[in-house]
């Protein structure tokens, strides 16, 4: 470690706020947000979102300079010319039926590499116009080596990913995405977050003590202006947790930041341009007697979120008065009158999936799609990726709703190739009003090679969840959102018009048992065969090499003497 070094380079370092003329303003910005939603069941859902927006053509710049955008992810995007990247790790299952529709649900592990479609700042999904931007080059994905992707992501996210087979690309929406059939179990990703602002609440031992826990990274391009002449890159790191407030709070549904996270908010993140906490106080408005939030919110925000009108209390950490009063901010919610245990409103769209059948040869995959809207039918896009070792019989595909056959208006089926690619089944199904639609398909379980089994084959094999995308009619008409101004949880999906909203749901992942061989079988077979061969050989050998003589009959012998005794007793002449 010599301390002297020859110097040949000057790097200009300029102080920011002091103002020695910034060479150019930073082109990236960070917004952070926490939404706390008391769920009808008494649980509390907390959704963190950290959104980094970078006004840079990530794929076309030779030298890459990163500020808020993480370098590892940026390099991933530019090296492989990705258009989108969605990666999520989830433990637990979002119970849509009881918790209501989530802002953004995620299956247990899901990698999604998008190709086209740029989210315009006006909200509608608009493809890049080729006139203003160079023609988009052909996609280098899926890579020839299916291991490259999981490997790179594994190193970046400290997660165990195992991708089997090739990537598959659905034909329709989500537009041109290729998703990877991943073993739907993985360990944890480590977030590279800043240690200030909302992220102080992220304390591992509390976050993993929850009934639902989902981390996700979404990278996608967004339009920089209305005409979408140039694009920016958006990185959203989200974390959703559901705390069982009812049990930890000894039967009370009250909660506070400290009780959930064992931390309180102390300062805004100095790098964030927006740092806010939203608390859902929808019931508060209807009747002032039900609940109380402390400290009282200075402003509220009302909008139509996922089809229903919601009211949120806003705590802006950048508002200096907010924290200065007490040096920290511990938001508390107390129920003045315990909310009556009314049945929570059932969401218009929810789904269920299961495997039926008995034995280890055949089975049936069934998906139940519920449309609880009293009078409106709406179409749902159902996307299924089924691993190749469940051999689907497509002729058994039946879709029934209200006892009648429901013919899908669009079907795309891509058959599986053994060990290469999974089945891909995509259907556009019209769900009649107030109905249950059952989609079922039969399959046969394939035999794997004995090296292809996982170390715990009797646990079963996971089948990734089906994905449901739908425009669900909303109760209240929503205004189109302003992309940059509205809170982050409201700008996840573009709203095309106010009469319906976009929902993407994932069903449960399934666990299917495959016929599992006895793994000592090869050895047993070898031993048995060898023994049979050895016995045959032995007698053959004996027969050929032994010499046979004629034995002279001998007098005596125990048997003969015994026989003679008996004969004598019977009065028969002895031998």
């Amino acid at each position, binding site marked *: 470690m010599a301390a002297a070094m*020859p110097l040949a380079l000057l790097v200009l370092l300029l102080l920011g706020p002091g103002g020695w003329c910034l060479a150019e303003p930073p082109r990236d910005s960070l917004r952070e947000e926490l939404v706390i939603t008391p769920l009808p069941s008494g649980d509390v859902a907390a959704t963190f979102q950290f959104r980094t927006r970078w006004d840079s053509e990530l794929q076309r710049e030779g030298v890459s300079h990163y500020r808020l955008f*993480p370098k590892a992810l940026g390099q991933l995007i530019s090296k492989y010319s990705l258009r989108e990247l969605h990666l999520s790790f989830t433990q637990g299952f979002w119970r849509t039926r009881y918790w209501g529709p989530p802002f953004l649900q995620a299956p247990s592990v899901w990698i999604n590499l998008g190709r086209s479609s740029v989210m315009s700042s006006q909200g509608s999904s608009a493809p890049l116009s080729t006139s203003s931007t160079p023609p988009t080059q052909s996609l280098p994905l899926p890579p020839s080596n299916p291991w490259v992707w999981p490997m790179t992501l594994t190193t970046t996210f400290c997660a165990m990913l195992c991708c089997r087979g090739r990537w598959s690309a659905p034909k329709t929406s989500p537009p041109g995405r290729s998703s990877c059939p991943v073993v739907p179990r993985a360990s944890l990703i480590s977030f590279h977050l800043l240690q200030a602002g909302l992220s102080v609440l992220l304390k591992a031992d509390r976050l993993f003590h929850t009934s639902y826990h989902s981390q996700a990274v979404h990278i996608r391009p967004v339009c920089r202006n209305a005409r979408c002449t140039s694009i920016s890159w958006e990185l959203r790191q989200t974390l959703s947790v559901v705390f069982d407030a009812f049990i930890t709070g000894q039967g009370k549904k009250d909660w506070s930041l400290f009780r959930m996270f064992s931390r309180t908010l102390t300062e805004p993140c100095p790098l964030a341009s927006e740092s806010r906490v939203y608390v859902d106080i929808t019931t508060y408005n209807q009747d002032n007697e039900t609940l109380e939030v402390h400290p009282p919110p200075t402003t509220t925000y009302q909008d139509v979120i996922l089809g229903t009108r919601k009211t949120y209390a806003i705590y802006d950490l950048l508002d200096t008065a907010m924290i200065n009063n007490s040096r920290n901010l511990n938001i508390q919610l107390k129920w003045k009158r315990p909310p009556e245990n009314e049945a929570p409103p059932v969401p218009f769209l929810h789904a269920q999936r299961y495997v039926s059948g008995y034995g280890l040869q055949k089975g049936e995959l069934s998906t139940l799609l519920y449309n609880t809207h009293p009078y409106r039918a709406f179409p749902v896009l159902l996307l299924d990726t089924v691993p190749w070792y469940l051999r689907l019989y497509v002729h058994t595909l039946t879709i029934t709703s209200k006892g009648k056959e429901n013919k899908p208006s669009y079907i795309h089926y891509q058959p599986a190739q053994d060990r290469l690619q999974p089945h891909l089944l995509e259907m556009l199904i019209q769900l009649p009003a107030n109905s249950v639609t059952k989609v079922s398909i039969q399959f046969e379980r394939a035999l794997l090679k004995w090296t292809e089994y996982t170390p715990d084959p009797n646990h079963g094999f996971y089948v990734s969840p089906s994905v449901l995308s739908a425009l669900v009619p909303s109760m209240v008409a929503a205004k189109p959102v302003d992309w940059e101004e509205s809170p982050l949880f409201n700008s996840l999906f573009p709203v095309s018009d106010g009469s319906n909203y976009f929902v993407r749901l994932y069903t449960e992942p399934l666990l299917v048992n495959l016929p599992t061989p006895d793994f000592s079988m090869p050895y047993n077979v070898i031993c048995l065969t060898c023994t049979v*061969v050895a016995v045959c*050989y032995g007698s053959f050998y004996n027969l050929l090499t032994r010499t046979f003589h004629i034995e002279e009959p001998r007098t005596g012998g125990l048997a003969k003497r015994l026989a003679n005794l008996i004969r004598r007793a019977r009065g028969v002449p002895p031998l």
Partner: protein
Amino acid sequence: MAAAGAAATHLEVARGKRAALFFAAVAIVLGLPLWWKTTETYRASLPYSQISGLNALQLRLMVPVTVVFTRESVPLDDQEKLPFTVVHEREIPLKYKMKIKCRFQKAYRRALDHEEEALSSGSVQEAEAMLDEPQEQAEGSLTVYVISEHSSLLPQDMMSYIGPKRTAVVRGIMHREAFNIIGRRIVQVAQAMSLTEDVLAAALADHLPEDKWSAEKRRPLKSSLGYEITFSLLNPDPKSHDVYWDIEGAVRRYVQPFLNALGAAGNFSVDSQILYYAMLGVNPRFDSASSSYYLDMHSLPHVINPVESRLGSSAASLYPVLNFLLYVPELAHSPLYIQDKDGAPVATNAFHSPRWGGIMVIVTLRRPQSPCFWDRLLFGIAQPQLPPKCLLSGPTSEGLMTWELDRLLWARSVENLATATTTLTSLAQLLGKISNIVIKDDVASEVYKAVAAVQKSAEELASGHLASAFVASQEAVTSSELAFFDPSLLHLLYFPDDQKFAIYIPLFLPMAVPILLSLVKIFLETRKSWRKPEKTD
């Protein structure tokens, strides 16, 4: 009746004996080879003898030097002898199995008219500019101009001059032994410009015994096809100061020209990042006398590890990464100095870690600063050892002289060859030692390729073609490592012997025991029957 019975029994016994012998013969002649063939691991043939030959490889590094004599540089009768060629060969003593010889092939010739004209101009720089134009010199070659003893081209006390390109100027002498004296000077200059012992020792640092060469020699990054350079600005306290750096401009202005000049040595990619809340692993001490904070020299090794985890692995490539870190201390810890062993602050306030990069600490943020940190040694460009009374030309705009690049390429070629040879030798050793390893055809072809590339590179070095030698040496390293790290080598490696026995014994034991027993019996009987007749006699 009894005789007939005995004869029949005798026949039977003989038949049984024949059958047993036949069984044994079939088992040995047919069964054993069949078993051997079917359970054999596939091992493609490898050029073992050539690989062991590589170990004793003699590297001749030929540096073609063109020596140009101007009119009054040497006595006239000596000039009559021109042109001719002199070879100066010297073995470089290194404690390494590879013998390295340096050959300076000096082609003496008279100066052409335009060269005479250029060298009679007023200053070296002018002369260089005039000489520069006509021809492009090949990589690795040098041109030395010998000027007259009293020429005013160089300052009077200087004997030689090394230019930024592949040229040098040496003062001539009017002496009977002129060629010998000048020849020695030329070799000195040429060595400084191409190959010296310590350059090669630094290149082979990994392959030499530890004690001989200091850690300083291990500073440069190992030879690789490409390098990644990452500039990171560490700001542990964004609340107090929001720091911005014009790294794009700096890279464009200062780094990129250097890397462009260095382009022949590998691919370079540059990126930068700003890391917030990235702390050093050590708490700086407070010095009340100067009311400043300082980092001890011996605590510097602990600084890097916690920072490194934040630097992030590179997702895009596998090239070695060079890190240049600029640390802006927290407001509470500024001003921050690095102290050397004696407790005095280090002038540059920076330190480097061999093969990793460097960290520079900003003292205080009172004014806009232009910190400089760049270490040419990390790239393997060592300071030249100049002969006495030698003038070195000023730095070029790229910060790299052409002959320095050549010197790097010489060193890298030798290093690549040494690496490839070591890899191939250890691969051959490993394959010889463990007979379970499968050698596939593609592994074998990579090995053949690597061997061929090593030989080609050595030939090219011997004939003075540096560029193609370097390319061949890179190929050699790539192929040899591909072969060495091929995953197919591991396929059957962990197939233990007890499993093999468990599978073979149920078949082999019941088959082998009767055969062996009957063979033993036959053997004993034959011996008995041989002895019997002797006894009766």
